[in-house]
């Protein structure tokens, strides 16, 4: 797929053409603060405000320090640190099985990816093979997680532009999926279900797949409503199209992954590129876009939800009905993993999420590093993209990058 150039932009862009051209001319490998201008704040021309850390226009606890000239942002700095809980260090002081309950708290919308990655890293280092049914259930849980997170994300995106009812619909339908999780795993938001060796328990009863199907149908209905109300909405189109354009040449230097990258036309998807679990047995395509603006990214996310629903249906159909769901672990109270290091990754709703784990042969992990998928989006990329954007649109821009502060700061 040939990459798009910044000159090919969709019509009706409210953005200032010159700013876009200036953006396009900048060398992406140059850090944004290298070309920093000094803004004289006492001149009366510039205003510095803080959007965040407690702000409805910020996804989580993150502070954007904006310098405004009138209504337009001329400089943006991202400050994180309000959500640093020290997971990586905590894990160094906990036995491997004790790490398992805490990693899900690294990310609120999609905790299962953390559990999955920790479990996979441990399994690779310890040489444990999980049973087949466990792999299918894990994939099902991850896809359901993605659906829940993206539904809420769609709602959040709409809310950032003032389309509040869609925000409410999104959160309400996420709750239906959380109900399913409650039945399956015993927890709504933090599941603590994917354990090294497999999953903790099998389906609660044999009607569970039919309940999943019922919720999926509800979601499909919701998506069709959202299509009518949001994507054909003149206000949304006017504000979102052309906003936050990311040139495809920026994808690699900034480490952008996930829907954000695919919206720019760069086809990267961990599920297809290096299939994990049972994704090589499922039929699906990468969902690509071209325009690489907020509208396109939102559109792609909606497509992802529909894609995930199709994947869930495939999984439920192809899954083995019987079988163990857990491999036997050695006594977890004093479990030593052989020394080694590994990097495992997965495609979360926001992008590629990775865990790098080093073990030294003792009962405690030596080092665990968590690569949050939106790590680069909120810091380097947003600072670049926010320049020249009207302050009213900053929230919408940020949500479209799917920044998730808990994941960034762990």
């Amino acid at each position, binding site marked *: 797929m040939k990459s798009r150039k910044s000159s090919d932009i969709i019509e009706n862009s409210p953005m200032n053409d010159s700013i876009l051209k200036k953006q396009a001319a900048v060398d992406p490998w140059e850090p944004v603060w290298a070309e920093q201008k000094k803004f004289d704040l006492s001149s009366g021309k510039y205003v510095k405000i803080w959007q965040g850390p407690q702000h409805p226009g910020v996804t989580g606890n993150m502070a954007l320090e904006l310098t405004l000239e009138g209504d337009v942002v001329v400089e943006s700095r991202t400050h994180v640190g309000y959500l640093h809980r020290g997971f990586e260090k905590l894990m160094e002081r906990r036995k491997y099985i004790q790490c398992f309950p805490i990693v899900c708290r690294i990310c609120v919308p999609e905790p299962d990816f953390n559990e999955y990655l920790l479990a996979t890293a441990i399994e690779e280092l310890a040489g444990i093979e999980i049973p087949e049914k466990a792999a299918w259930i894990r994939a099902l849980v991850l896809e359901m997680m993605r659906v829940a997170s993206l539904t809420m994300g769609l709602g959040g995106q709409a809310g950032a532009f003032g389309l509040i009812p869609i925000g409410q619909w999104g959160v309400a339908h996420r709750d239906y999926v959380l109900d399913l999780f409650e039945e399956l795993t015993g927890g709504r938001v933090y599941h603590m279900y994917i354990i090294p060796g497999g999953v903790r328990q099998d389906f609660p009863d044999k009607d569970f797949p039919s309940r999943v199907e019922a919720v999926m149908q509800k979601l499909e209905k919701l998506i069709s409503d959202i299509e009518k109300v949001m994507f054909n*909405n003149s206000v949304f189109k006017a504000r979102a199209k052309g906003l936050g354009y990311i040139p495809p040449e920026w994808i690699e230097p900034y480490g952008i992954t996930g829907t954000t990258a695919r919206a720019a036309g760069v086809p990267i998807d961990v599920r297809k590129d290096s299939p994990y679990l049972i994704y090589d047995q499922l039929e699906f395509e990468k969902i690509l876009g071209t325009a690489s603006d907020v509208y396109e990214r939102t559109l792609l996310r909606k497509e992802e939800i529909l894609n995930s629903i199709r994947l869930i249906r495939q999984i439920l159909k192809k899954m083995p009905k019987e079988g163990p769901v857990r491999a036997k672990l050695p006594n977890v109270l004093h479990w030593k993993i052989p020394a080694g290091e590994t990097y495992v990754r997965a495609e979360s709703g926001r992008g590629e999420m990775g865990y790098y784990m080093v073990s030294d042969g003792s009962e405690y992990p030596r080092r665990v590093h968590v690569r949050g998928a939106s790590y680069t989006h909120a810091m380097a990329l947003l600072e670049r993209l926010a320049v020249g954007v009207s302050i009213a649109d900053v929230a919408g821009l940020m949500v479209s990058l799917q920044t998730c502060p808990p994941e960034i700061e762990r």
Partner: protein
Amino acid sequence: MSLKDTLSPFYAWKRALEKPFTIKKPVEEREGAPRYRGFHVNDIEKCIGCGTCEEICQNEAIDMVPVDFIHVEKGDSGLRPQIDYGRCCWCALCVDVCPTGSLGMSNDYIWATPNAEEWVFKPGVDDNPWKDDDKGYRRTDEAWLLDPKLTPMPVMEPDVRKHTFDEMAYGYEVVMAVEEASRCLECGICIDACPTHMDIPAYIKAIRENRLEDGLKLLYDTNPFSESCGRVCTAHCQDVCALGHNGEPIAIRWLKRYITDNTADRRNEILGIGQPLPQKEEHVAVIGGGPAGLTAAFYLRNYGYKVTVFEKHDKLGGMLRYGIPEYRLPKATLDREIQTILDTGVEVKYNIEVGKDVSFKEIREKYDAVFISVGAQIGTQMPIEGSDTPGVLSGVEFLDRIAEGERPDLGERVIVVGGGNTAMDVCRSSVRLGAKDVYVYYRRTEAEMPANVEEIEEAKEEGVKFEFLTAPTKISKEGDKLKIECIRMQLGEPDATGRRRPMPIEGSEFTILADTCIMAIGQKVDSSLAEGTEVKVTRWGTFEVDPDTLQTNVPGVFAGGDCELGPDDAIHAIADGKKAAYFIDKYLVKRHDLKAEPK
């Protein structure tokens, strides 16, 4: 801007006519899912206070605390979990690791209180609305994090071992021992159950971490007969093992054997035996060289006293040698272990019976302290007619002869009367001596047999036939066979003591002809050495002692083991020996002090 785009948002108004997503009163209308991880519940009867939940909790939210109305007893530490909900993350690992399945979670999820201190609570003890909920998250078999299966010990096949007195159990290999040792939860409940309080979790950990030298030192801290106990101990520890509640207990006995077998050639070196110790002047006499006596001798030597053991046989070991046959405890193994004790510098006088060859009075005068450990080596006689007919043997004497190396011919059919470990040893030895038809007659039912369950199983595998609720009433000679008249019993209703006693059934008499009949119905102490002395003897023939210090009514004279407790197992004798050594030391130190007082 197309018209469609302007009008399409109004589509959202259709929601005004639809049912809302939300529930009006979620607290009442919506219960947590059946698997929901809510607030903790605990069945405090099932809970044994092992503390595994405390160990696995990642945020140290659980503390084990004593509870007023729960008492410490064998198998229960008396503690119960207290959970701090300021720290709990509701992961339910504590539920999944519980060995008894007592800890669980209800599906209740709302707790509002003005007093935050309430959120540190003891489930099952403190009163809460969800205390008796049976819905919620419980430990299931597929989620259980522990391994209920034992690593089996490789043993000789029954058909092979029936014909030989060679040792039956082969011993664990390295991999098997480490695997079995990995099952341990380190809860420590076994330590209290062991009569001599061996530090079991510590030596199991030593096996796991391949530090066998440390393991051996831990064993000898409390038990110098670890090699023998590793083969024949009754294992009270295994009876209370936390894993034994919902699975098979850890094979602690075999793990002990693994340590001693694999360090046997370097034992003295590891334990530091042979190195010079500070010596004291006092000289202690030990009467009886069995497990109690030799253990006392070992620890007294460690204190620095001179020790002399008086043994009536020509070899040491007591019931370990003369009461337990080769296939359970080979003599070579026992000899090597006794040699380790003798290497500490214990003096032994063989073939001297105190009370006959030398009087107790002489010993009492010559030595500074005396420890009596003569054991209970006389078999109880069944007072029925014909019990002195030739061909009727006493179980204890029979085992004594086997231990000396005799292999008497018992004929084809042997009847063994009794149901304890002695009877099992006797019947299995009879099989090995070539008897084809070996019966065990026991007056009560199998459930009441005092013998080890494993012994009974192995005897059955070797072809011994068991007849329960049967007892002989008269024995006589018929030709060259014994004619044994027996009667069948049935258990009556519970009497005033609550026990159901066996009563003869009218008309159920039968007669059986046998070549040999061996009585193993009980054991007695030979306390004749105390005759004419002030040492008090109870009505059962055992020596009367102060249970805290093991001293008899005569100062400086102590007694322990079978001769003080009544016939019991080896580990109790060893515990008594160690305790006596401690109190003998205290007694001698005090006396020393008294002597040193200026006049």
